[in-house]
């Protein structure tokens, strides 16, 4: 039993982080360069078996990837595109799988907004949408779908509304919707865990750099203790996300419980840490220029896709008891 990344996994993380750093600036929109680099690195099929055209790693490595994406606040339809390539592969659509892994298509994430409408995240530039409707998950072509964009809370995550989206012809349907949704929930938890870590790091750096009363503000216990709590929440989230990834990867009977638990602790950590991070920065933290607010809005977005903290909490209690 070992819960820390192996040296090989650490190398994967380093390489992911350097690809992100070379092609993305936190607070900026997704660049084509990063999307293309992601495709070239095989990120869209990272956890897919080689036989299905993927890189052949597992959910554990995918979780490491999404943690890095969360940490750098990389916007863009990574989550839905990765889930879509798995959906296509599991549905036996080999050509579609290849197409998605190649990065030629971007996939928006569609969930119920109200009785008639779906919200679609990242629909701008997307050719397909992954529709989550209850336990049914389908991939549809967005061509010809009327999309009505609304002002988005996170300005880097465009939101559109679409009527009757589920009536668009499905390109493929997930043979096991709940399993795909568990995977998606866990990857969203990884994004959130990344945010919890990034905001801790921002606060710590600022606490060391910024001086008032003739000393670094991080020396003041009020700030120091907030940072210690942030670090602890981030660690709690990171550990549970890894545990859940292994439980789900290995098909353990309590995997479902662990995924819900991971999403709950990661969402709480990301939301709380990103809020406190603004406070730790004082006036500069309240500016548009600073990236602190990016994490505030991004954490809310991720905490509201594929279930909410409320629904995951309920499922935590209903699931098979942890072993």
């Amino acid at each position, binding site marked *: *039993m070992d819960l820390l990344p192996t040296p090989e996994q650490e190398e994967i993380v380093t390489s992911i982080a350097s690809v992100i750093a070379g092609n993305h600036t936190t607070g900026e929109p997704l660049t084509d360069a990063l999307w293309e680099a992601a495709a070239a690195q095989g990120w869209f099929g990272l956890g897919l078996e080689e036989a299905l055209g993927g890189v052949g790693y597992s959910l554990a490595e995918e979780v490491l990837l999404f943690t890095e994406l969360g940490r750098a606040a990389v916007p863009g339809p990574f989550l839905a595109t990765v889930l879509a390539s798995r959906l296509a592969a599991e549905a036996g659509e080999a050509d579609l799988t290849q197409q998605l892994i190649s990065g030629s298509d971007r996939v928006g994430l569609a969930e119920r907004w109200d009785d008639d409408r779906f919200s679609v995240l990242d629909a701008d530039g997307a050719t397909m949408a992954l529709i989550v409707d209850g336990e049914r998950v389908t991939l549809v072509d967005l061509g010809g779908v009327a999309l009505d964009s609304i002002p988005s809370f996170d300005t880097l995550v465009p939101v559109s509304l679409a009527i009757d989206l589920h009536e668009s012809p499905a390109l493929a349907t997930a043979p096991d919707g709940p399993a795909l949704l568990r995977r998606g929930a866990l990857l969203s938890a990884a994004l959130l865990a990344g945010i919890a870590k990034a905001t801790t790091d921002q606060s710590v750096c600022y606490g060391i750099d910024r001086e008032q009363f003739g000393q670094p503000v991080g020396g003041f216990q009020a700030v120091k203790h907030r940072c*210690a709590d942030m*670090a*602890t929440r981030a660690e*709690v989230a990171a550990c549970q996300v890894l*545990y859940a990834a292994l439980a789900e990867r*290995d098909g353990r009977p309590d995997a479902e419980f662990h995924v819900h638990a991971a999403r709950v*602790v990661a969402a709480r950590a990301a939301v709380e840490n990103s809020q406190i991070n603004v406070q730790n920065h004082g006036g500069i933290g309240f500016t548009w220029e600073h990236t602190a607010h990016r994490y505030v809005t991004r954490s809310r977005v991720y905490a509201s896709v594929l279930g909410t903290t409320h629904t995951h*909490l*309920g499922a935590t209690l209903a699931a098979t008891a942890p072993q």
Partner: protein
Amino acid sequence: MNLDFTPEEQAFREEARTWLAEHLPTEERPPDGQPMREFDLAWQKTLFEGGWAGINWPKEYGGRGLNDIQQMIWYEEFARADPPFTLNNSCTFVGNNHGGPTLIVSGTDEQKSFHLPKILQGDVVWCQGFSEPGAGSDLGSLSCKAVIDGDELVVNGQKIWTSYAHVADFQELLVRTDPSAPKHKGISWVICDMTTPGIEIREITTMSHVNDFCEVFYDDVRIPLSNVVGQVNDGWRVTMTTLSFERGTAFMADQVELAAVVERLIEEAKVRTGPDGKRPAIADDEIARRLSLARAEVAALKAMTIAGISRTQRTGVPGPEGSMTRLFHGELHQRVYQLGLDIIGPEALRLTPVDGNGWTGPYLQSFAYTIGGGTTDIQRNIVGERVLGLPRVK
């Protein structure tokens, strides 16, 4: 990265489960005094005879030399066996988790061969004489004084909050041997025989109705210099190794047991009438949400504990990250028992023992979890300064 147990670890689990089914005491632990001491020592003796004492102590000192994963498995099996007492709430705690491990690292051959077998076999109780009225969180400012007189130390002063001093045979005692040196440079770590003349012990009753807290007074207490562990005036370094065991595995038993407590509380919430006086407690939204969160958080605590073990296996020594686990665990433990009181309704008016499956006694005891072994404020300082590298300011 994997969650698998090796065949050896699995066999160890089976062995532990079988043995516990046959040997776990079923009677309640006496709450105090000699009967408590006898109960705790008898259990330690049973453990020793069954080969379960010192699971992660090196073999050459009578331990089993097993890894921390096996130590965790043992705690898990103990919790699963539904014991009528908790592992750490025992007067053998200091010997097993502090005194013994410190001697293993820093003791002389004579000290080891005399004391270690006695600790493992359940012959002796050790207590920890660190805190003083004027030195709690600021342990380094301790003032209990010892002067060298021939081949003896002569100790004068006072300790406080010494758990189990009234039933102890030996004490890990911190004394100031050089008052003129900087505060961390003039301390010595000594083994004090509690039967030495000049020691007076007064019991202090805790808010959880237990008398195992003590004040200890030293009036010209003569301790052989050969009882110093490490060098004279090098006690702070020795103390840091003692405390690193706390960061490592000492509280793992509590962490593992908490998962079982939460499952028990969920069962409790299904049968107790809830706040509306009609439906079961678990049907109440707020209670259900708090239970769900507790279940998620104890799972994360376990993941954190395993990550800590993995880290120690790579670096060899438990790092300061353990303070995050301590901090999270202490506060989570309290939240679980606070929730317990909210779930049991009018039963919350009945006092139950601190040990065992009741809720009110353990609730009162839970206040200790954010004070003992370094308060949560101190843990936050450690995380801020030693994990995150934030500046230390006077």
